[in-house]
């Protein structure tokens, strides 16, 4: 759910049904995007699984910037996964041959 202005698309608050797990990681990737001027998240009440992510950009549509950051986070995850799988395979091969 996006709360913003129709006239000024560069600043809005996104209310998502998430928690710190995704919100903190998204906040990190958003901050690293050079188009973002302000970004942060808050949890309105701990009993309710809702998080408000505030994005203010230097002109681009806030929704597009958030989507791009999600894509960046997905690429980071994919890279982590492939590097991890490679490292596990290497470890198993090295230790398998050593124990023989």
């Amino acid at each position, binding site marked *: 759910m*996006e709360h913003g202005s129709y006239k000024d698309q560069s600043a809005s608050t*996104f209310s*998502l049904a*998430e928690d*710190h*797990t*995704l919100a*903190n*990681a*998204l*906040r*990190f*990737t958003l*901050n*690293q*995007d*050079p188009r*973002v001027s302000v970004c942060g998240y808050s949890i309105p009440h701990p009993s309710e699984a809702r998080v408000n992510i505030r994005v203010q950009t230097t002109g681009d549509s806030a*929704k597009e910037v*958030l*989507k791009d950051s*999600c*894509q*960046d*986070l*997905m*690429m*980071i*995850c*994919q*890279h*982590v*996964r492939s*590097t*991890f*799988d*490679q*490292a*596990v395979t*290497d*470890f*198993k091969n090295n*230790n398998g041959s050593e124990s023989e």
Partner: protein
Amino acid sequence: MPKVPLWDLPELPQNQLPLHLQLQKTRVSCNNDAPTNTENVTYSGAYSALGVDNSLRLDEFRNDFKVKVIKLNEEDMEFDLIGIDASIANAFRRILIAELPTMAIEKVLVANSSSVVQDEVLAHRLGLIPIKVDPRLFDYMSENDVPNEKNSIVFKLHVKCERKSGERLTVYSHDLEWLPSGSEYVLPTENSSESKPKTYTSFTSSQVSLPEFANNPITVTPGIIISKLAPGQEIELEAHAVKGVGKTHAKWSPVATAWYRMLPEVVLLQDIEDEDAQKLVNKCPVNVFDIEDMGKGVKRAAVARPRACTLCRECIREPGWEEKVALRRVKDHFIFTIESTGALPPEVLFTEAVKILEDKCESVITELS
């Protein structure tokens, strides 16, 4: 930092921060009283006045990111993630603990229990027993669903302590028998029909017929004490297990626990020799320091095992030592430890956790589009 006149400052290479700022950005300084520099400088324009770009460049991340596996066996693993930010490492940890699905006993049908342990306490204990089955083979069961072979596992427990033995009997988790054909207890119905009576579950086929379970019977972790019975007491019950996540109840958490710590860095700011060196080596409870013999009877202290440092700060507790030894943590080097309860091996758990974070991002993108 010693004071240097402006015109004597060294020339900085482009795209690199001065050393003190690099220290502030990449290391947590663990001082005697409290750690400082704990926040990550994430803002892309943080160092724009210096001409250094702090934004995320995926190619650089791909080149710098490394994973090193230190220990790996069926139960636990220890590995290093180098070059990633704390928020993402924490996201993986949170998902490993709370959002990876497992199977755990949820409904307990007690036919007979004359033990001193109350039914609800017994049911609670049964729920906490880890079930060694791959949860990806099962579906979630919602309120409206009928329990069938695709979403539940049925176990039976029937133990009786014989009067003749005179000793107490301990009921262990390996006394739970897997019933691949489903529940054996018949539903109470008004009209008795001649066809097969309906039970509490509706298995259309036996779970043994599935290829995954043909030679692999579903077991629970053995050796866990469920209850103790005195002579003459008996427990007869059926336990149904379903799929869930740790967020709902901790019994569905697939890890005994999962944690990470940042790599400690111990730096000797001055040369520490002779007596002081021996004192330093004796002070450290985990033997981080070693004595190096420099020849001519001069002994110097050196940092041998910084990774073992628990940051107890014994070496800087006494006055005067804080200028000699600097304790720091490297902000982007995480030593992850994952202890699995047996459902899935730890390396599979981590891969699944990363997949779940990717799925969350995708759902946000679809929600926004």
